[in-house]
């Protein structure tokens, strides 16, 4: 069977017509129709489908870029808010600390003033007291002299010459 096939092929080749390596006008015709096919498919297939793919790519890319931008914006906003929040918190703490410090200072100041006043008053009182004591001593001394003079006069029975 295969034998006869080979024979057939050989026969055909020997005839100069047919056979496997029979190159004839089919070649240029095939080339031309292939080029026409390239042109036709370019118009019917590559251009429109390519355009569809590119358009979709562009759309997706722009959407993605937009989304990315929005995300970035949102993130920036979140960051800003966070920062603002932190700032505010810090400020609040500062205000509290300031107020505390001020209060403490005022308290200390007032305390010091009061203490000073008290000191001054105490000193004054002390001074008055000292003065009064001295006065009292003086008057007492005088009285002692007078009394002792009287006692002497009484004892002596005659007034002493002054």
């Amino acid at each position, binding site marked *: 069977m295969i034998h006869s096939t080979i024979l057939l092929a050989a026969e*055909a080749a020997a005839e100069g017509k047919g056979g496997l390596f029979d190159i*004839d006008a*089919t070649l240029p015709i095939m080339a031309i*129709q292939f080029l026409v096919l390239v042109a036709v498919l370019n118009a019917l*297939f*590559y251009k429109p*489908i390519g355009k569809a793919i590119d358009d979709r790519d562009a759309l997706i890319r722009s959407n993605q870029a937009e989304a990315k931008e929005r995300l970035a914006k949102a993130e920036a906003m979140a960051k800003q808010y966070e920062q603002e929040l932190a700032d505010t918190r810090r400020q609040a703490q500062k205000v509290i600390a300031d107020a505390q410090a001020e209060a403490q200072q005022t308290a200390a100041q007032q305390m010091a003033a009061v203490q000073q006043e008290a000191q001054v008053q105490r000193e004054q009182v002390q001074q008055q007291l000292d003065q009064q004591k001295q006065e009292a001593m003086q008057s007492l001394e005088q009285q002692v002299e007078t009394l002792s003079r009287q006692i002497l006069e009484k004892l002596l029975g005659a007034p002493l010459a002054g």
Partner: protein
Amino acid sequence: METLNALTTLNAFPLAELEVGKQFYWHLGNLEIHGQILLTSWFVIGVLVIASILATRKIQMVPAGTQNLMEYALEFIRDLTKTQIGEKEYRPWVPFIGTLFLFIFISNWSGALIPWKLIRIPEGELAAPTGDINTTIALALLTSLAYFYAGFKKKGLGYFGNYVQPVAFMLPFKIIEDFTKPLSLSFRLFGNILADELVVAVLVLLVPLFIPLPVMALGLFTSAIQALIFATLAASYIGEAMEDHGEGHEEH
């Protein structure tokens, strides 16, 4: 005698007949044309054109059906071309490379899948267009022309500089390459497809049932691979012709 009789009955079975090198001649003036090849090639062209029309009839943002399939095909072709020719220059070559791939692929698969044999023609038999040396030589020569065109368009006469790259003594080899490229392209495709068809035919002749199936499956695989190889090589030749060697050592 008994076996011989069996063989003849087998022979009478219409699917199990082997015809090699028989052509169905058409005459155009005094030119001869292989009619069976042109007929199947028209079928292939028709399939491609109809698929394209179906795919682009109503282009949607979200592809469906044929559009999806053809978009997949185009993406595949673009990828192939891009890897061989490079990001910058591949776009104008997509139609040529893509048509090479699609035409060869559909031809090969039509030869493997469609029982052409059932359609009787006066002489010879219908078969894959790529199983004919005329078709493959035509495609290979077009590829050669394409890469020459690409080279000359990109660099003008400086294209001849390619022949002495990287060393001048490569010149004869490069010239021989220009002849071996189309030769190997055409004969590889032709040989593979014809051999596949013959193997299947012979096996069908010997054991008409089931046994040829694995070989047929293998044939489908080979057919696809051959289409891919042809298109990839064509793209790589074109890319090679446009490659920069000179001053601005850019990325290749």
